[in-house]
């Protein structure tokens, strides 16, 4: 078969298939059958384990074994122990800071990628995407080289005489390390939704605003942010929720400084206290859900005002 023939054959088959799908989709059974596989995967891999964890979290734990019955003791322990309180606050704080940093870094990147266009825009997209092709663990070791006490950053600072060995900043195995690492990991998730929405905002709206006397800040707050809100809110939500639940980067770069997912993993793997680990997991899920719901409320309010 020549290339052209195969192309037309392929086109015909394709058309046939989409025709069948279109018809099928409009029937009641068809609709459910089409989303069925996805539902099944989500149910098996997400909902069932969550339900199992939820039920574990109420099981008493005594003498190194899970007992029958039901108790709130694990939740009480999580909320009343200073260690866990601090860890939860730290986890949320880090997620908030990472989200802010990524918005501050990501918005200009997304803006430049769209407005500059050409090779500059492509370069930004590629540079933002490239880290995703490298494994998280490998990337974290990359940060070791840059951030450790005698690493590239500190030795450069010492070379420039800005710091001495004695007062060189501690960039690794603390919150700073986690924040730097996570900001890097999460940046694409902030940049791409904003790039998408930025493509839909005509440049002449910015020019019109400037022409009417708006400086850069006003153009940003009154034109770009309201119009890019769908992308910005998606970026912020993804960045925040995924940061909250991330494990690898904080585990490697945080050292002794822990976040909730690290504590959960340690509890699961190094003790047999699954009920307590489950309770911690549920608290994390609860925080994420709370934030998502509250966030959507706020967005709805804003939409009402701005008329977006």
């Amino acid at each position, binding site marked *: 078969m020549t290339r052209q023939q195969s192309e037309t054959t392929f086109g015909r088959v394709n058309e046939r298939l989409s025709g069948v799908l279109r018809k099928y989709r409009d029937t009641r059974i068809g609709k459910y059958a089409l989303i069925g596989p996805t539902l099944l995967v989500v149910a098996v891999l997400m909902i069932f384990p969550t339900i199992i964890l939820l039920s574990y979290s109420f099981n008493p734990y005594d003498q190194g074994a899970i007992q029958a019955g039901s108790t709130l003791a694990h939740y009480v322990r999580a909320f009343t122990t200073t260690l866990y309180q601090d860890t939860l606050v730290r986890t949320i704080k880090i997620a908030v800071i990472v989200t802010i940093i990524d918005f501050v870094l990501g918005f200009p990147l997304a803006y430049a990628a769209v407005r500059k266009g050409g090779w500059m825009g492509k370069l930004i997209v590629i540079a933002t995407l490239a880290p995703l092709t490298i494994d998280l663990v490998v990337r974290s070791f990359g940060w070791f080289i840059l951030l450790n006490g005698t690493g590239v950053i500190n030795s450069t600072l010492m070379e420039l005489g800005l710091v001495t060995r004695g007062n060189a900043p501690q960039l690794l195995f603390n919150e700073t390390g986690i924040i730097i690492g996570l900001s890097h990991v999460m940046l694409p998730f902030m940049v791409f939704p904003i790039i998408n929405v930025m493509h839909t905002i*005509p440049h002449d709206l910015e020019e019109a605003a400037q022409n009417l006397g708006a400086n850069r800040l006003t153009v940003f707050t009154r034109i770009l942010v309201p119009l890019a809100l769908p992308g910005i809110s998606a970026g912020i939500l993804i960045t925040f929720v995924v940061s909250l639940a991330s494990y690898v980067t904080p585990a490697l770069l945080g050292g002794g400084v822990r976040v909730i997912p690290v504590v959960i993993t340690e509890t699961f793997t190094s003790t047999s206290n699954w009920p307590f680990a489950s309770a911690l997991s549920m608290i994390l899920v609860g925080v994420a859900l709370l934030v998502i719901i509250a966030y959507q409320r706020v967005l709805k309010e804003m939409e009402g005002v701005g008329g977006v």
Partner: protein
Amino acid sequence: MDSADGAEIAIQYDGVTKEYGDLKAVNDVSFDVKDGELLALLGPSGSGKTTTLRMLAGFEKPTEGTISLAGDDVTHVPTHKRDTGMVFQDYALFPHMTVGENISFGLKRQGFEKGEIQERIDEVLDMVDLQGFADRNPRNLSGGQQQRVATARAIAIEPEVMLMDEPLGALDKKLRDQLEVELTELQADLGITTLYVTHNQEEALTIADRIAVMNEGEIEQIASPIEVYEEPATEFVADFIGDTNFLEGDLHETDGRVVLDIEGTEVDVNAAGVPANGGAVFVRPEKMNAREAGYTDESVNTLPGTVTRRLFLGSKVRYFVDIGRNVVTVDDSNKHGTTLHEPGDDVVLSWSVHDTRLAHG
């Protein structure tokens, strides 16, 4: 700053050049716009007219030269500090704001009070005939209405000059004709100096006080619509504005007369002399009449030819007449007594020496 006839100069371009890499989008352009005048920048796409306009708004920085607004050099003043009001081709209305919020956007930047802003919104909506539209969403308006809102938004801030970039380009012919009239009336009422970019020569002829015809980044001619049409300075202007018959032949001077020899028939040309770099002789179609074969008149230019096609256009009859070297277009007005010629008929074309123009190459 005053021009020769005493009117204030609102806009001044002095040796303005804009380069994009190797490309000279605008090449050494200089002109003045008088206070209250409407100057149309007319040219084909890529002629540099829009770039010229955008440099006054501050969206582009000239590579060379200076631009002055009301006597002040604004070449390096940022856009938001220049006192211009721009109407964009696709209006650029803020989709997340109502009509009223669009109009108040500029007023808020100027620090007006809430009450004043409301008054001003009503006032400008009244001017563009959109009373009661303040709470509407611009996305739900027709093209013509959006255009009016864009105009209202630009005049609300009472700018020193108004900039219009093909403001009627996205509208259909009928609406365009109507808005042309309304825009010119509004512009004249407000007495606001306006720079108006268009590629539509009819639009430019209708609305402009003066037209600057641009080609390849340079201004070919800057003059009143009548002068640009009747006495185009260059072949490009003659060709770009209106329909034109270029007559091919041997151009020379005899006894102080400039004469074009078309295959043995001599045609007198309305020119003082033959320019060194030659020139193009042309006659507008409506200046010519198609007469019966054998017609003679010593006081005008005449030329024999054969009708190849006839178009009956209602108000006029258009003939395509083969005159040997080329085919010319002749528009006869449809009046009682005008003889209709058929394709294949031999005719004599007649037109006055005055209308036989010479454009520089």
